[in-house]
């Protein structure tokens, strides 16, 4: 997921959000080596050189990671370009990317052995080390808890709770609220296991059954840390999309009631309120 020493290239650096967050990430200490934009009139943003192609970012600045702010309709091309250029990790912040585009991106990323996080996600943060994303860093104090979340703002809320009232954050991984994401809950757990993190908070949503699958996967892999979960969307009616394209209950298994009772039967801690999330 992240080793903390990534050489980051910002795709879509000249846009409003790309520019704003490049400045914030730099200030946080993230090693941003360059940006890429199709707008060739801009040569520099906040001291970061702006290039025309991902290929140059890899060749000239040895970028190994990219963070994508490119608008949805151009995102597939941007990510494809990055994959062919040899970027190995791609964090897609952009929301509203068509699902068929994401299916293509995901299948290409598997073929080329590239790690994708997102889309429609806040990114990843290791408090006090690096931030590749858009989260308000104030809510993330360094500590020993891993957060996995499909939701962005809810992740901020939970991080704030864990920073103020518990032992702080080791890493927070925003998976994104779309039905097709490059990294799912199981893969996030693989990273947490590899890094030996012993406390995990999983923030879930209606729709799909990734949360249950992911926790089962972690336990099968021998994860012996503590897992706490919080689900938003108990009041979500069936068949209605609740903001996130992925947050739609289609059938019993997607409902929060089902997910919560299933996890409880597995002996997993399910919190009623965010303020109950304390280790």
């Amino acid at each position: 997921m992240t080793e903390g020493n990534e050489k980051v290239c910002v795709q879509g650096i000249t846009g409003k959000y790309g520019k704003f967050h490049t400045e914030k990430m730099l200030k946080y200490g993230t090693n941003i080596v360059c940006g890429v934009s199709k707008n060739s009139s801009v040569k520099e943003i906040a001291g970061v050189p702006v290039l025309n192609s991902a290929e140059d970012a890899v060749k000239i600045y040895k970028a190994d990671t990219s963070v994508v702010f490119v608008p949805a309709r151009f995102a597939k091309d941007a990510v494809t370009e990055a994959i062919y250029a040899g970027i190995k990790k791609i964090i897609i912040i952009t929301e509203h990317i068509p699902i068929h585009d994401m299916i293509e991106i995901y299948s290409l990323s598997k073929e080329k052995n590239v790690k994708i996080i997102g889309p429609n996600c806040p990114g990843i943060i290791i408090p006090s080390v690096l931030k590749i994303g858009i989260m308000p860093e104030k809510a993330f104090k360094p500590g020993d808890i891993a957060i996995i979340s499909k939701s962005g703002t809810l992740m901020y809320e939970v991080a704030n709770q864990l920073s103020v009232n518990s032992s702080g954050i080791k890493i927070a991984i925003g998976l994104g609220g779309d039905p097709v994401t490059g990294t799912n809950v199981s893969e996030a757990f693989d990273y947490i296991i590899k890094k030996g993190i012993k406390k995990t908070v999983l923030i879930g949503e209606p729709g799909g059954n990734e949360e249950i699958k992911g926790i089962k996967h972690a336990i099968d892999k021998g994860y012996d840390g503590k897992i706490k979960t919080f689900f938003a969307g108990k009041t979500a009616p069936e068949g209605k999309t609740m903001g996130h394209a992925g947050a739609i209950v289609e059938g019993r298994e997607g409902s929060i009631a089902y997910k919560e009772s299933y996890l409880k039967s597995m002996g997993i801690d399910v919190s009623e309120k965010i303020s109950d999330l304390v280790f």
Partner: protein
Amino acid sequence: MKIHEFVGKKILKEYGINVPESVFIKNFPPEKGIIPSVIKSQVLVGGRMKSGGVLFADNGEEFLRNTEILLKKPIKGEFPYGVLAEEKIKINHEYYISAVLNREKRSEEWIFSEEGGIEIENSENIKKGSYEEILNTVPEKFRTFLPKLKKIFNEKDLTLLEINPVAEDTSGNLTALDCVMHVDDNALFRQPWAKKFTEDDHDFHYVELDGNIGIIGCGAGIVMATMDAVKNAGYSPANFLDIGGGADKETTLNALNLLKSKNIKITVMNIFGGITKCDVIANSILEFKEINKDIKLFIRLTGTNEEEAGIILEKNNIKNYKDLDEMINALDIFLKKEVHNND
């Protein structure tokens, strides 16, 4: 986004798939008819057949009567967009075929069954797999039918394509008798044909629910968590409303005014600003409160520019609760007092 059957069938036809001869009727009396025919209410809810949304006609009198009935009849609360009258097809055998999105595999999944019809959920004879896998197992006559569906599924940005049943007539021809299509909302920019049926013209995500407490937040997760907290306290959310990240004054005011137009008297607003600037939200709240003193707002603003926002609200005697729990407590006390006063 769900697509009406008559629109889906037009697309099938364009791609060379047989559909029954038909007329689409929007108003009564119809200009044209088909006899004998199957008359189908054009609604987007499922279970239309069982709810009486499909009628038959063997003569002109029946045709007019049943068309009029269906045009006026809501199905599970949804009024029809129109009715579709189709010629009756002589059916020898019915098949089921669909393409969906498999979230776990992060790919398309194709489903085929030799037993089509309305009880497909209970059929044990279902094959699931990738397009190639299904193409290799279907009967010979589907080998040219399936590639057309594949093309539609990809080119039209569908997240669901279901034809149930595909009818085989006595001479072995395949005809699509029904058609369910869902288009990816995120792809509407390149699917203009679907766009004209979009109902949602807000600059935020809004879903109406049946309660009386308005909910506004930024980010789907935080809005859902707020709805749940209201419900946990024993009250009922009136809606889901996500103003999204980076909302400006106009969006915020539009959101507040929409809830006002729905006659909501109490609204809970929960903002954790990342991209969203809290002072912008605070100023929007002031502007709204100025005109709408009778609407009670419970506000919790934190994150980017929260200090400025706090000052703006405090100056105007509007309480900014420090977290969700505190805000919900205040709502609870307020509503209990209101009940007490009404006694």
